[in-house]
């Protein structure tokens, strides 16, 4: 068994539509307990960005802490701990009830810029964590339709407006990856575009293409993705069909960051060409 007697300590959390999160813990025998959120460092990088919230005594005898809405947390994954005393070792928290029903229809609302999105979730090993995104502007995907050679995407901008010179860019990852761009006729917040998947396949197999939009001539590119609901990890849940183009299978998918990419894979068939 690892950890102390409190390894089963659970925190309930309720997330509101504006991103405010209220954490609730049981009564604690601690003088100045705080909730510690730790930004998970990138592999090989040192700790650490932490955010501390006081755990106030609640009416029911338990403790509660509030994470205010707005751009409080940088983008990433935050692990939740209890810090019982300033110098005491922190104790990792397990999730209790995560009430995030208010997030389910987030994609139907207007979001103020910068977008600060938080989605509490349970890690694979069963602890409480929060996925955050912090973006000055965002293009939220509403629909993806895949046919046998095209992908049509409908999206909605938050924190930006389409203007003269708007383009959609599909760019293969890696240095000097090929780029496909297309203009868009739309104006305002909503836009749609169609990507010729065969064209991506023709550029070579085993590539991943990232999809972005530049809302105006001088605007920075904004990654397209789907962030605005209750789902922290979309990759295995929002799954789209693959188009078979020649020997390749081309499939739009959501990355581990919930951004949209298109993967081109050589189909392994008995008739496939071998060098």
């Amino acid at each position: 068994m690892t950890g102390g007697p409190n390894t089963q300590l659970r925190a309930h959390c309720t997330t509101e539509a504006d991103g405010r999160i209220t954490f609730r813990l049981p009564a604690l025998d601690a003088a100045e307990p705080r909730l510690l959120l730790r930004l998970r460092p990138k592999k090989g990088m040192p700790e650490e960005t932490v955010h501390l919230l006081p755990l106030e005594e609640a009416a029911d005898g338990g403790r509660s802490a509030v994470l205010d809405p707005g751009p409080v947390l940088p983008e990433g994954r935050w692990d939740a701990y209890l810090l019982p005393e300033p110098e005491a070792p922190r104790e990792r928290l397990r999730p209790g009830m995560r009430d995030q029903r208010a997030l389910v229809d987030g994609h139907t609302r207007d979001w103020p810029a910068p977008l600060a999105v938080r989605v509490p979730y349970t890690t694979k090993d069963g602890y409480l964590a929060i996925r955050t995104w912090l973006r000055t502007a965002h293009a939220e995907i509403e629909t993806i339709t895949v046919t046998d050679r095209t992908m049509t995407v409908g999206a909605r901008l938050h924190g930006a407006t389409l203007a003269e010179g708007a383009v959609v860019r599909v760019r293969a990852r890696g240095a000097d990856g090929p780029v496909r761009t297309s203009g868009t006729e739309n104006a305002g917040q909503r836009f749609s575009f169609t990507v010729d998947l065969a064209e991506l396949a023709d550029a070579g197999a085993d590539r991943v293409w990232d999809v972005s939009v530049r809302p105006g001539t001088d605007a920075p590119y904004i990654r397209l993705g789907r962030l605005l609901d209750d789902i922290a990890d979309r990759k295995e849940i929002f799954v789209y069909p693959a188009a078979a183009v020649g020997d390749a299978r081309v499939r739009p998918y959501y990355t581990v960051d919930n951004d949209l990419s298109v993967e081109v894979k050589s189909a392994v068939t008995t008739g496939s060409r071998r060098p």
Partner: protein
Amino acid sequence: MKISFLIHNAYGIGGTITTTFNLAHALAERHEVEIVSVLRHREHPNFTLDPRVSLRPLVDLRKEKDNPLHQRPARVFPVAEYRYQQYSELTDRRIGECLEALDSDVVIGTRPGLNVHLALQAPSHVVRVGQEHLTLDNHPPRLRTALRRAYRRLDVLTTVTEADAAAYRRKMRLPGVLVEALPNSVPDPLLPPADGRAKVVVAAGRLVPVKRYDLLIEAFARVAAAHPDWQLRIYGKGEEQPRLRALIERLGLSGNVFLMGAAAPMEAEWVKGSIGAAASNFEPFGMTIVEAMRCGLPVVSTDCPYGPGEIIKDGVDGRLVPVDDADAMGAALLELVGDDERRRRMGRAAIENARRFAPGPVVEQAERLIGEAMAARSAGTRAAPQRAGLHRTLISQGFAARDTAYAAASTALRALRRGQR
């Protein structure tokens, strides 16, 4: 009163584990309760156990998997039981020793093989309660034959539905055994109920063929066609996952139907929806239906044997549709999707009507059954005798003969097949 539960593996995931924990928690309010888990394969149970309930494993697979006794076949645990392969001479011994040393007033078995153990091995001073979470009609004939002999020695046999209790009374002659339905209980929700506004239909369960998620997805295609802003979320894992994924793609529902993976607790997921759905061909009880209703969701379910029809009041707190009928299921879903007022009214009715499955009422019923069994014992009559008229005896003897014949025939068939190899 001290009450011991005997369960296959308290460290896994499943309906029997959930409902046993729920009942144990509720009984712990007034009694000393322990759960004896025949097997253990991990440190902690998946579900949080109330600290008032003690948990005692008998065989720790992490250390004892290679025990030579565990390689030898079980003799007490019946061969025809579904989990026979996981039982052994080691489990036979440990369960036997555990029961022999039992200082409880009541022991509750939670599956057929364990009910047999306590029928045969529990000391005479302990009240023996067998729980059936599956159904008699779906047990193989050989198992029915084994149970028919052993279950006579129980004080109480509980099923999860009235229909199954009726089947036991009709098809098994169990003189002196109190046979009654004791539904699964679902704890009081911690979260406020769903408000009926979310454009989400929720279903949950293992992704196995009998649950007919394929039918549910086909039915939902009708909803998505008329209301593209609605989604269907299916929670659970299982062997059907790839087939269901392919079906979703084939029907062009990638943006409407989502395989969400397993979620625990489900409560936080139910409240994100405004309609629950169940499309099973067979459902011994229908725990998820009750869970959804307690969270304020009207449930559209197939009227399959046995549970749904005893839980849902058609048109009042949910809808019952014929089994294997995607059109009927689609129409019933569509009707609730398209009528906000009706959906919300039925959701409120669901909360009211599902209260009878709260731990309070269910535990009262359990206590009453135990009390009756104890009274019968002290009166020397065991439980209240059934009206075992000649007619009933003849009927149950008929079923017994048929099961024995089936069992013999299948043994012969197997012998024949072996001979052919």
